């Protein structure tokens, strides 16, 4: 269930572009106007707006945004405005250039998208980076992570509901065998996780639970510091219960001192058109606090307004609280670097 709200009568792309241009003109920027338009248009509408804007004003909308706004707000707006496949391709490339095993972005893209969405990401990656996603991933990762991530990201899973129960039983046994031997990167385990359809996998994991008395993920917690096990658990959660997975990402981003703005932005911009409503429900269930209240309490200014606009299916809820300083001082540099890379790709410079 998406949270994106689009007005009943949508202005034409040309009208939207005119308003956006007005928002950029003169001293300062009308951020509220930007949010009121972009945060309430779906992917195809945003694409039309970008095309129309480029045609009328001879400049890319994203460049204008980069010139006018900054910081976490800019990052959220730019990521949101991008087409979902391009967005994922950009996030994947960003994650690869600075690859750390604990970065879950690639797992999310590979496991929490449909087969066709993942394929669209691979196509967008070709167009943006002139290489395939798999080749960059394979070249930037090593060892067990490469063994898991490359097939995950290259998979084109069958999407039908058919399930072979006999196979589910036998593969549940195989999974159990391998993790009992602590052979977490065994090729059969990888094969099952990276090639089977989601329906088949879920059936297999249910069988695992039935046969062996505990959920698959519970058996992957032998070493809390092991990054590979964490990746396996993340992959399984993205298949089986993406709302709870993303609710946890949001919770961890908000909890404690300071905020992990990048993670929060990622959850909200990548799921607003997918299942953010379900994520909100999962968040509420776990923390007894509505997600929009938690976000409002932890973020401020235009960044907060943008996130709330995407999060809430109602008129904007702006916090009246004091601005809380963010310990992870996200600077202009954060968003601009993302955008500068995008510019470079598109202009081929």
């Amino acid at each position, binding site marked *: 269930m998406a949270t994106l709200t689009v007005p009943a009568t949508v202005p034409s792309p040309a009208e939207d572009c005119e308003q956006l241009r007005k928002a950029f003109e003169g001293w300062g920027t009308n951020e509220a106007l930007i949010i009121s338009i972009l945060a309430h248009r779906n992917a195809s509408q945003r694409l039309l707006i970008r095309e129309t804007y480029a045609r009328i004003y001879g400049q890319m909308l994203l460049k204008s945004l980069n010139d006018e706004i900054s910081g976490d707000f800019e990052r959220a707006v730019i990521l949101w405005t991008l087409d979902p496949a391009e967005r994922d391709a950009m996030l994947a490339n960003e994650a690869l250039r600075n690859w750390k095993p604990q970065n879950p972005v690639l797992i999310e893209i590979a496991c929490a998208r449909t087969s066709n969405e993942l394929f669209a990401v691979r196509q967008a990656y070709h167009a943006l980076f002139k*290489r*395939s996603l798999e*080749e960059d991933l394979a070249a930037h990762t090593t060892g067990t992570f490469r063994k898991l991530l490359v*097939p995950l990201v*290259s998979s*084109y899973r069958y999407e039908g509901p058919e399930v072979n129960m006999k196979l589910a039983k036998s593969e549940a046994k195989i999974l159990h065998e391998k993790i009992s031997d602590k052979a977490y990167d065994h090729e059969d385990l990888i094969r099952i996780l*990276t*090639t089977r359809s989601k329906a088949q996998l879920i059936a297999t994991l249910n069988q695992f639970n039935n046969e062996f008395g505990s959920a698959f993920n519970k058996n992957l917690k032998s070493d809390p510091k092991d990054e590979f096990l964490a990746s396996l658990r993340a992959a399984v959660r993205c298949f089986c219960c993406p709302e709870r997975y993303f609710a946890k990402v949001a919770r961890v981003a908000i909890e404690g001192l300071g905020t992990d703005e990048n993670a929060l932005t990622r959850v909200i911009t990548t799921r607003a058109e997918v299942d953010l409503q379900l994520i909100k429900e999962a968040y509420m269930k776990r923390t007894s606090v509505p997600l929009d209240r938690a976000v409002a309490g932890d973020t401020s200014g235009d960044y907060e307004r943008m996130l709330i606009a995407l999060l809430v299916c109602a008129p904007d809820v702006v916090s009246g609280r004091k601005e809380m300083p963010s310990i992870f001082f996200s600077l202009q540099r954060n968003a601009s670097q993302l955008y500068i890379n995008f510019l470079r790709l598109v202009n081929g410079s």
Partner: protein
Amino acid sequence: MADETLSLKKAFSGHGGFGVDETTMAAMVTKWRKQPDQKSRFRSDFSGFFTKIGSIEKCEDDYLLRLKTEFSRFKNIMVLWLMHPWERDARWMHHVMHKSYPFTVIVEIACTRTSEELLGAKRAYQALFNHSVEEDVAYHIKESYSKLLVGLVSSFRYEGPQVDNDMAKWEAKALGNVIKSAGSGKLIQNEEVIRILTTRSKRHLKATFKHYKELHGKPIEEDLGANLCLQETVKCIDKPAKYFSEAINIAFKEGADKPSKLSLTRVIISRADVDMEEIKETYHKQFGVKLEDMITKNTHGHYKDTLLTLIGK
């Protein structure tokens, strides 16, 4: 136009069970050569035998079963020729799972089709068999080369002109080192070999193979040992015309087994609209005989006529 379609439909349906009108069929191959739109229109019009699953076109299963019982090489080639290329490739790959075709067919399809064609074949495979081709290959093929096969079939290679020449040189060196240090049996499972062969773009790989030859004084195929899978992979990526002309030649050899003979039909049908001219030239250069002549000498009847038309005599 409507008359032709009608007579072709009749030809396929048979004369009330007394066989099939092969002459009409053969004539259509000539008429519709290099016209995939004609064939597409025929398929959508011929609802008894061709149908659609979503956006994937396929033959009705009953019809295919019936054909098998009245098997003849000619009918086989006609049906294959009319089929959508994606369905063809999907069915050929499926045959490998059930061991009726050699695994090299998967290498052939994964490496000689464009990225979009391979995607189409994978979609058709899912529509036909309710599994992804990757999961079937990973599950049914448990040989030393299965990791390479899964990688090849999962690939979605970049198809643009950009090549990082420095990286190509570096990878040529890296391959050289791996080949030197790994035992020839282990080469097929080496991570770097698999990574390079299954993820890099074809242009990049061609550049890499060229650098390899300059560095080591001989083409990489010579250093790959008796590793059939690796050899075929390199050949399909680097010199597909040579690969196809050799596959055809095996079919003509004395004592060729059934799968090898079937490769004659497969190669000619799948390449007729793509690079048949180049394959003919390569064949002539390699074996000193014109392909037309070999076909005329070794095949008969309408099957022969169809093959000759498809290669563009």
